[in-house]
């Protein structure tokens, strides 16, 4: 078996590339550490000196202001220097290879690379080529993984539900293209959630999804029944009509989260969404803004989770 490239020889987090393959104890350790950082983010001075003198390079080969900003806030609250590089428009358009870009930045004394890339696995390639003191955090690669989002989803679920061992979690929508769904599913199965369901039309459920340890449902009626947690996925504009779906309206009718459909879930169910939301497509406004929604707390927790991950990878010899 290949050694997990995320862990060092001592089994500590060297890079964060995927939730898959992280041992349960390590997942819990990340969530516990994030819990402590959540305390810091509630103070007036939301800053600790942990990463003073360290440089965090935000390497976004694919645009995402939101995600980049949350990493930037997290790094700054750890007192790191943050350098934002919109690589999508700088180097690669000049034909520079991914590894050349990384080698160049590495020469500028980076400690952490936060990488967002359109191709699944790109952060693994970078992690294989960085120096031992440099760390890679995957901020979303293709359809593969978005581990910090997965972790903040787990953090949110634990915050509201305390314990994973009796939970039914429903993940709804475009699972096929969703790195968020993959990361969350791996986390939930590792932490022992007994029932994880994915709900969507066949066109949006990947082949062999059951092998991820989930139950595949094609109707909300079946999938939302008695759910404790409902996670709505973002439906990209370009997929709303074409060969995967006929129209946003039809998707909304069958798979959009409305108050009626949410009533199928448990009375104290929480509703999550990784954002940005398409109101009226995958989620109705009265649900997104309603009492079950924890979508805004997710964003807040996301900063603490990213602080935890950065401080866990960058410390030590």
């Amino acid at each position, binding site marked *: 078996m290949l050694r997990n490239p995320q862990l060092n020889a001592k089994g500590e987090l060297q890079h964060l590339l995927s939730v898959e393959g992280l041992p349960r104890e390590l997942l819990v*350790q990340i969530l*516990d550490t994030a819990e402590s*950082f959540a305390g810091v983010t509630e103070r007036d*001075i939301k800053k*600790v000196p942990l990463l003073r003198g360290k440089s965090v390079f935000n390497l976004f080969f694919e645009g995402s202001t939101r995600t980049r900003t949350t990493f930037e806030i997290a790094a700054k609250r750890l007192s790191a220097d943050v350098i934002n590089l919109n690589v999508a428009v700088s180097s690669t358009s000049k034909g520079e290879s991914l590894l050349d870009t990384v080698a160049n930045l590495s020469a500028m004394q980076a400690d952490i690379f936060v990488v967002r890339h359109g191709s699944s696995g790109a952060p693994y390639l970078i992690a294989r080529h960085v120096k031992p003191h440099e760390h890679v955090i995957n901020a979303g690669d293709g359809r593969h993984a978005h581990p910090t989002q997965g972790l903040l989803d787990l953090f949110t679920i634990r915050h509201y539900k305390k314990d994973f061992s009796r939970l039914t979690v429903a993940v709804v929508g475009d699972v096929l293209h969703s790195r968020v769904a993959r990361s969350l599913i791996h986390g939930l199965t590792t932490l022992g959630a007994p029932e994880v369901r994915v709900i969507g039309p066949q066109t949006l459920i990947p082949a062999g999804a059951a092998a991820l340890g989930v139950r595949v449902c094609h109707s909300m009626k079946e999938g939302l029944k008695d759910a404790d947690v409902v996670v709505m996925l973002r439906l990209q504009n370009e997929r709303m009509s074409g060969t995967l779906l006929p129209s946003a309206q039809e998707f909304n009718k069958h798979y959009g989260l409305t108050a009626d459909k949410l009533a199928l879930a448990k009375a104290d169910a929480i509703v999550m969404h990784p954002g940005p939301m398409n109101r009226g497509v995958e989620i109705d406004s009265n649900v997104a803004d309603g009492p079950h929604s924890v979508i805004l707390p997710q964003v807040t927790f996301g900063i603490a989770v990213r602080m935890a991950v950065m401080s866990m990878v960058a410390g030590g010899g």
Partner: protein
Amino acid sequence: MAALPDAEALCAALAAALAPRIGPTSAMIGIHTGGAWVAERLHAALGMREPLGFLDIAFYRDDYDRKGLARDPKRSKIPFDVAGKDLLLVDDVLYTGRTVRAAINELFDYGRPASISLVVLAERDGRQLPICAQHAGARIEVAAGMRLRLKRSEQGRLSLELERVA
């Protein structure tokens, strides 16, 4: 080797020594983990007005680059406004002074206290920073290669122990 003093007795003695100094602006903060245990004893004995605060200095340590983040940092909780307070900062053993340095730095991220006094159950030689305790329960000689630690039994009883540094 001389027997170590009883930790519970030291707590009681410390509480008695501190009692005359407690005023309306006094507040107490314990440093995780041992300092928090001592602070719980003192706080209860002194009947202070402000609730007890707790600090975990994991995010302020100066050995992060060498040792990385502590495995299980606790959440720092200061349930009162530190600005203008006369703080009693409580730890179990004062040794190099680095923990106290980190704790003072962290405290200032909560606000500007009027004063900070350091209260420790025991102190030993080996200071690496210009820090001294205003109130120390005992002064204990510790041989090189040994560590003085506060332990808590399952019944909640505190005791000092010497152990070999790994």
